[in-house]
């Protein structure tokens, strides 16, 4: 009941409405806000992109590289067991950064801030302490070992004594981001992932040349920031170009010699994912071994890019971002799995006749590049 209001009358309803216009407006406003909020209620999630055709069923990545029987590949490799890690007696506690094979098929494994040397049979021979941030190592034919660390290369004699070292960097003094080192006769080749090229040094650190600058397409594209390479006895360097999914070949003076490889998820001959192959090694009979991530596998190629063999992902941890490779004189492949900290060895068991076809190459129409000047 409101004061100063006529007791009864026709103006009652109108008056009341007039006096209560404000609450009514507030109610309308509030309910309008609720309706606005209700209209903004999240709709069922749906895709914005509409494809006109039904997409093909996706290929699960782990099966993209099947372990085909020997009838499919020309060569088959079988695991011979682990040298370090896995079921072996020797274990690395916290890291495994690289492996190398030296004279007499000695295996050098870098991890935990030290180098462990194994005889070909598998027994531990020596343990040397090295700088803790070493990222790669190489063993020369005379038994000298060099390791690469950011901005530095250190050299050790066959007994493990530190005999020298030098700073590696560019002309402006920026330290090189060394991700791989290799001996070639008396020279040391170091991959500089920051500058995206390979530097040639002599033992004392004098830079003799650069590799990777002369390609017309430009120098390496390294989305994952890692450059790996290997050099064979003739001085041909095979380096990974992960952004282009290629294995590139170079002469020691930097002349580009060709490349092979392309991206592909279905054909086992291709390299999967965004940046592969991450590691490469060359065998004594001229074959090229590559390591990939995302589908962690190791493949063996002819120098012109034909796939010879595949060591499937069931052997390695799927979280690996590297599979460090080394090959010994018998053609056995050593693979270092840094997640499991395991060095496994694979030996070839079968070699098909030379003209046996590769099954998937025919169906997928993979591209092979012969040696070509680029």
């Amino acid at each position, binding site marked *: *009941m409101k*004061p*100063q*209001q006529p*007791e009864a009358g026709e103006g009652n309803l109108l008056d009341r409405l007039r006096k*209560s216009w*404000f*609450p*009514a407006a*507030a*109610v309308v406003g*509030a*309910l309008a*806000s*609720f309706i*606005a*909020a*209700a209209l*903004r*209620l999240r709709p069922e999630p749906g895709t914005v992109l509409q494809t006109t055709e039904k997409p093909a069923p996706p290929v699960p990545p782990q099966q993209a590289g099947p372990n085909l029987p020997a009838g499919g590949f020309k060569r088959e490799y079988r695991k011979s067991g682990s040298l370090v890690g896995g079921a072996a007696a020797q274990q690395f506690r916290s*890291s495994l*950064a690289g492996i190398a094979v030296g004279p007499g098929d000695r295996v050098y494994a870098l991890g935990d801030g030290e180098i462990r040397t194994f005889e070909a049979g598998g027994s531990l021979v020596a343990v040397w302490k090295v700088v*803790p*941030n*070493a*990222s790669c190592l190489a063993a020369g034919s005379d038994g000298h070992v060099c390791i690469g*660390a*950011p901005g530095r290369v250190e050299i050790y004699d066959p007994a493990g004594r530190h005999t020298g070292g030098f700073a590696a960097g560019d002309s402006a003094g920026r330290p090189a*981001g*060394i*991700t791989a080192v290799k001996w070639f006769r008396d020279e040391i080749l170091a991959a500089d*992932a*920051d500058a*995206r090229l390979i530097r040639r040094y002599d033992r004392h650190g004098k830079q003799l040349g650069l590799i990777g600058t002369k390609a017309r397409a*430009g120098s390496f*594209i*390294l*989305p*994952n*920031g*890692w450059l790996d390479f290997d050099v064979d006895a003739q001085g041909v360097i095979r380096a990974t170009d992960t952004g282009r999914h290629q294995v590139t070949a170079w002469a020691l003076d930097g002349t580009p010699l060709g490349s092979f490889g392309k991206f592909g998820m279905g054909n086992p001959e291709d390299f999967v994912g965004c940046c592969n192959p991450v590691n490469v090694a060359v065998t004594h009979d001229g074959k090229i071994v590559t390591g990939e991530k995302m589908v962690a596998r190791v493949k063996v190629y002819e120098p012109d890019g034909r796939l010879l063999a595949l060591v499937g992902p069931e052997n390695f941890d799927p979280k690996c*971002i590297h599979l460090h490779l080394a090959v010994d004189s018998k053609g056995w492949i050593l693979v270092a799995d840094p997640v499991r900290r395991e060095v496994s060895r694979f030996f070839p068991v079968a070699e098909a006749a030379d003209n046996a076809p590769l099954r998937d190459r025919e169906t997928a129409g993979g591209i092979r590049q012969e040696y070509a000047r680029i």
Partner: protein
Amino acid sequence: MIRSRRFRPLILLLMVLASSALFAQYQRKPPDFGGSYSFPSPEHPEPRSEWVRLLDVGMLVAGLALGTWLILKRRSRGGVMLLSIGALAYFGFYRKGCICPIGAIQNVTLSLTDPSYIVSLSIVVFFFLPLATALLFGRIFCGGVCPIGAIQDLVLLRPRKVPEKLDRALRWLPYLYLGLAVLFAGWGLGFKIGAWEVQAARRFLICEYDPFIGLFRISGAFHMLAIGAGFILAGMFFGRPYCRWLCPYGALLSILSRFSWKNVQVTPDKELDCGLCADACPYGAIHNYRADRASCLACARCYEYCPREQVLRGAGDEFVQVKLP
């Protein structure tokens, strides 16, 4: 660009830790793009600055001060309504209902039970200042500053009286809700009865079941909007249902308001015992012709209807028309 040096450490720390987890020794450098591309720095928008949070405290202090003056000194319903509209606009729609003293109950509880819980000075002020004001001047916060109270107050169309017994029973709910909110905020719930086990983590019940937050944000889940709309509809006919029968902070305020130094006095000078104020009060807070300090929400409606007030305002000989039963 990262605009404040002070906020950088957290983001950079996370980024650096993340990168070092991937490459323990070698840190990858970004590529050399060639061309004219310059490397962008990531934008990390900053949260509201401390100065803007201080503004919240300032508005609270101003609102309480202005409310005290309007309710106790100036005794104006129009003034209180304007103040509550302003509070609704700022604390409700601009700040989207968050920060509020009702929710601060939970923060204060949690900070007392968990010493590592970060609580800011504004939360402390937001919780304690309206309580201190209640101890001094009554439920000024409810009358002029609380946005939840304001929205219910503004949509009040046709207040109906709730039966006394029902009202008294419902007035226990805020204490129950307060207890539950404190329990869940400080400890969560965990007990076993025989084979039946209940494990509930700590949660902020008041924030999760805030009926009007969907309105203030103009977005929300369906059940939140439905509860809010329900309270608005109820509020059209039963004055301030949330404030009277659910608000846990109101429970605290009503306890303290009982002992306030000065409080709402319906008449400016002498009591008439005519009972017009009791008819006017939509909240049933006038008992025995006096404003019940515990339940008076300081809306200032009763002033308008008191004949003594009208005399004071110079209504002259125009007295109230009383409809005799």
